[in-house]
């Protein structure tokens, strides 16, 4: 049984089929790349998995449990976390607070009267864990600067740290490298690698930068116009003529032969 199982997911927006009967498995601890041209339905797929959108048909299960009727926050508590292509930060809060609020939500259990009244301060193990997460993601130096004063690259890291703070079994990364330069992307790859090594998190990565995809994942899934057109080991899929055609068009394929 795979960690995440999508079966026949379809989603239409008016006349456009954003997802057309897509099935996909992600095993526990596996890193899968999800690529495809713009408008292929990658972000829609993420939104369906986390419940920000309801698919028109199809089922989604996490570790064998159907989750497609659950609201977003329940799915998050079951162990799915994501980052956003367009940053969705908590304006006015610092990176440390981003991490702490996620940690507290997933911390469970009220032990003191203050926690019961929802006025509890972070516990010391939580603060330690936050410090740890901030240092893994390289945010220690800016931990107490409000996020709106930080740049895009830091914003991506804050989103990553916040996602990790919910201790996910499955991490959905939506174009984490967009807007970053090469050195920044390399730093991000390093962080993702470290987190996977330490926590065994499964990753589903949407990304246009194939170099970054290759550095992170071992398996590649290709979407085109809402359909899955390829699914397999990284190198095999990248060599697939259908995939090359979807990405680069017919003319390139003709010359390449």
């Amino acid at each position, binding site marked *: 049984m795979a960690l995440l199982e999508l079966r026949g997911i379809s989603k239409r927006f008016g006349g456009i089929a954003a997802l057309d009967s897509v099935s996909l498995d992600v095993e526990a601890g596996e890193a899968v790349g999800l690529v495809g041209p713009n408008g292929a339905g990658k972000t829609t797929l993420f939104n369906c998995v986390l419940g920000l959108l309801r698919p028109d048909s199809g089922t989604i299960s996490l570790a064998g449990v159907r989750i497609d009727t659950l609201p977003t*926050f329940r799915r*998050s508590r079951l162990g799915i976390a994501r980052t956003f292509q367009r940053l969705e930060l908590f304006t006015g809060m610092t990176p440390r607070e981003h991490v702490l*609020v*996620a940690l507290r*939500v997933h911390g469970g259990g009220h032990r003191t009267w*203050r926690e019961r*009244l929802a006025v509890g301060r972070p516990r010391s193990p939580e603060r330690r864990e936050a410090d740890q997460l901030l240092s893994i993601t390289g945010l220690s130096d800016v931990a107490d600067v409000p996020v709106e004063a*930080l740049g895009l690259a830091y914003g991506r890291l804050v989103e990553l740290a916040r996602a990790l703070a919910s201790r996910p079994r499955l991490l959905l990364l939506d174009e984490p490298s967009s807007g970053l330069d090469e050195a920044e992307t390399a730093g991000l790859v390093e962080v993702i690698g470290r987190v996977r090594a330490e926590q065994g998190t499964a990753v589903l990565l949407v990304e246009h930068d194939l170099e970054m995809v290759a550095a992170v994942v071992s398996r590649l899934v290709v979407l085109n116009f809402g359909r899955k057109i390829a699914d397999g080991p990284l190198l095999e899929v990248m060599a697939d003529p259908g995939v090359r055609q979807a990405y680069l068009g017919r003319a390139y394929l003709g010359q390449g032969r």
Partner: protein
Amino acid sequence: MSQLLSYAIPGVPFGCAYALMAVGVVLTYKASGVLNLAFGAQAYVSAVVLYAAVRDGWPTWAAFVVAVVVLGPVLGLVLDRLLFRHTRTAPPLVKLVPALGLMIALPAVTDMAFGTGPRRVPPSVLLDPTRVYFRLAGTAVSGEEIATTVVTVAAVAVLALVFRSQGLGLRMRAVVESPRMTELAGIRADRVSAFAWMLSSLYAGLAGVLLAPMYAQVSSTDFTALLVAALAAAVVGGLSSLPLTLAGGIGLGVAQQIIGGYLPSGTILSSGLRPAFPFVVLAVLLVTRRTLEASPALGDPLASCDPPRPSLRPPARMTEVALGTRAFTAFLVFMFVVTALLLVPGNWQFTLTQGLVFAVVFLSITVLTGMAGQISLCQASVAGVGAFTVGQLAAHFGTPVLLGTLVGGVAAAIVGALVSVPALRLGGGALALFTLSFALLADNVVFPYPWAGNGANGLTVPRPQVGGISFGTDAAFFWVALAVLLIVAGAVWLLRGGTLGQELGAFRGSETAAASIGIDIVRLRVIAFALSACIAGVGGALYASLQQTISPNDFNYQFSLVFVVVVAVVGIHSVAGAIEAGLAYAVLQQLVSTLPSRYTSVVALVFGLAALSYVRHPEGVVPYAKRWVLDRAEQLARYLSGGGEREAGRTGGSGPAERLAPGAGQSPGERRPRSRLAAAIVWLAERQPPGEPAGR
């Protein structure tokens, strides 16, 4: 059938005036993303000017030209230039507050200029208003009604043509999405929005002039009701379709007359429901049509050109300055208590107590709007629930006031939670409208009942008595108010730093992301509404006990609007802000009441200016001023301590953060300050120059 028609036909001209305003609302919404709540006020200005000019013996056509053709567009241009041009891509609250300020300021300023005496109806512009031209299904149709209908249909048709032939609608949408991108596409964004504002204000003026003769006299409250009806019509058209908006407006006018005709006359239901009908329609439409539903905000793709918005939290200060601020605050609090008790004469003591009570009510806005980012325009109504609960309990069961206050808070919390449930999916401006229609409904239909606010007679509420100690005098009640304020403020302060406060902060920052980290946003929203309503209810109950007699007029919708503007301007993000706002509001009112009566509109002017300043300083004017002063103090302290700058060492690191730094020398992460002093200096060196207008 003929009876139905005889009710329906007089509804058409009403509906036409709604539609005219609605078209203006749609225009400005498209061009600036602002739901211009000041439209009713703008219509009122034109109607009053027309009336005044005719009274002074001008020919009707000349008065019309001045009041509508000249004044309308000029007012629109001024509003666009001064206010709304700067808020296109701003958050909902920043868009709303200037409109609210104008909604209060414009009628007051107009009254100041033209006097407030009873105004007879101005003559109709086109045809002889009283002459019956023909009969339709047995109903007399006057020149007035013909003129209104013909002008409206013609005006909407012309606008629809302009839209279609010039691609104006598309350009307006582009300007709201991203003014810079629009300019890059070769369109003068400012000109598009100025044009839209001039045109829509012309329509507002036209609606005002056409509608005025249908009421017994020209009064500003009628025009607010008109605005809500227009908003409902605009929502029917999905805030974009002009023909649907016209149909919506006319349908609303007709339905309102039919309902008025069939309801049994002489009851509160009929006298209240007919004017309240548009509010009900608006609320239902907002919830069901979802035109204004919180959508994943697209934001301006070129937003990164802007300097970062000023942070909501006050920056960390050098130790010396922080200590100085604390000492100064303590001194102020001490002086406040001493003055309130010993030095000030009676009515000022009452005023200061009133300030404390307002502060409690304002804390409800701090929680809901400041912390959770939800805009509510019904806080005064919710406070009214608390006040009437304590009044009714005291009158019927002789319940002690303090116990009644608690029950009032609970009752208000229940009402608040109930209001939030249908509004769960509404965001920003839509939520504001929904709560406004709730407030209007409470004013018109609920509060007049004897079991609620008891209409104009109102209720009497005693001062509290604990055991043998009576808090009957103003001086004694001061302590009660202070104690309640301290408890509420302490609770809010605890919440801010605790789990709930952090979750509310996350919710305000991004609902989507909050849900995606496991926060139950539905539950959180209901909690935020209930908690805020509870605080408002307690404040309302306290206010009732302070005033001793209360009536629904003390809690009408206008107070809700005023409250939001006051708190937003003085500082919506901190507990201290609410307290300062409460005191400032009470003191300002008292100061104005000592002025001769014709200057009382000065308050409204202050509001207008506050709205102006808010656009420039959305973090609040007082926080901005504080920051400015403390910046100076810090510079002085640094100068006095001498050469502290050398302490801010620069250390290079090799972690990923350094490599990911968005630009060398700019990122705060590049420097690792050693001490608090050094941290303050680094901050000081990196902050934007204090004189610069922020967030533009």
